[in-house]
């Protein structure tokens, strides 16, 4: 796989070696199943669009029928996954192996991303997240701090993503 640890201008880019990604799918009738599953991992309610709740696992809203759980280890998500079993109106789909997770850090984080993503699509405040278009691929952005953010993309797009991050990084003024 392409080298995923580098500096894009003054922004450091590091691959997160293990990030568990589980999609909690649910039909509208079983919103409570979703909440139960989240509570099983310490998150009190379902996140609203753009909102990130919890800390390892982190829960992000993806669509009216999907919440994404992110965690550093499956220990933090297993209970939620287990709670989704037993109804045919909800399911948990493990997407871990398909996701490339990068941590971007630096003062010029926004300068970098605004060269790749439309300004309306960038999550600005810590604790917010968006699904957005980066040039020609769809990515998830999770803002943890003003200068730290996670970028999730499909693994097959790694080369393309890294190429663009480096290109945008080279355009940053020091």
């Amino acid at each position, binding site marked *: 796989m392409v080298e995923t640890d580098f500096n894009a201008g003054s922004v450091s880019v590091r691959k997160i070696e293990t990030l568990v990604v589980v999609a909690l799918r649910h039909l509208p009738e079983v919103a409570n199943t979703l909440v139960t599953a989240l509570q099983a991992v310490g998150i009190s309610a379902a996140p609203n669009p753009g909102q990130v709740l919890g800390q390892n696992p982190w829960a992000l809203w993806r*669509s*009216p029928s999907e919440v994404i759980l992110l965690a550093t280890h499956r220990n933090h998500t297993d209970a939620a996954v287990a709670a989704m079993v037993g109804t045919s109106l909800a399911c948990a789909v493990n997407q871990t192996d398909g996701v490339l997770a990068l941590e971007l850090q630096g003062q010029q984080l926004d300068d970098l991303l605004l060269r790749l993503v*439309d300004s*309306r*699509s960038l999550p600005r405040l810590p604790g917010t997240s*968006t699904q*957005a*278009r980066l040039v020609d691929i769809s990515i998830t952005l999770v803002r943890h701090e003003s200068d730290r953010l996670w970028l999730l993309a499909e693994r097959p797009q790694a080369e393309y993503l890294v190429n663009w991050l480096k290109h945008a990084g080279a355009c940053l003024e020091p």
Partner: protein
Amino acid sequence: MMQIQCPWCGPRAANEFYCGGTTAILRPQLDCDDATWGRYLFFRENPKGAHAERWRHTFGCGQWFNVRRNTVSHEVDAVYGITEPAPRSEP
């Protein structure tokens, strides 16, 4: 580039979306005649003015919703749920 108001994700650049064309078209029954079916498939009103159409936020939440857009000025005067009826237009 237009800006589309996704009901969930807020205002986003139009290139995050896929436009599905005219919305609220009634599908004829399986036993309709060929002319009716042909009109359903291929004929559209193409109005100069307010046009109710459906959009999908493909690069975002993936949801479909309805938009009423003026085909001349691109002004959007309504964004509503995919199964909702179009709200009444301003006089």
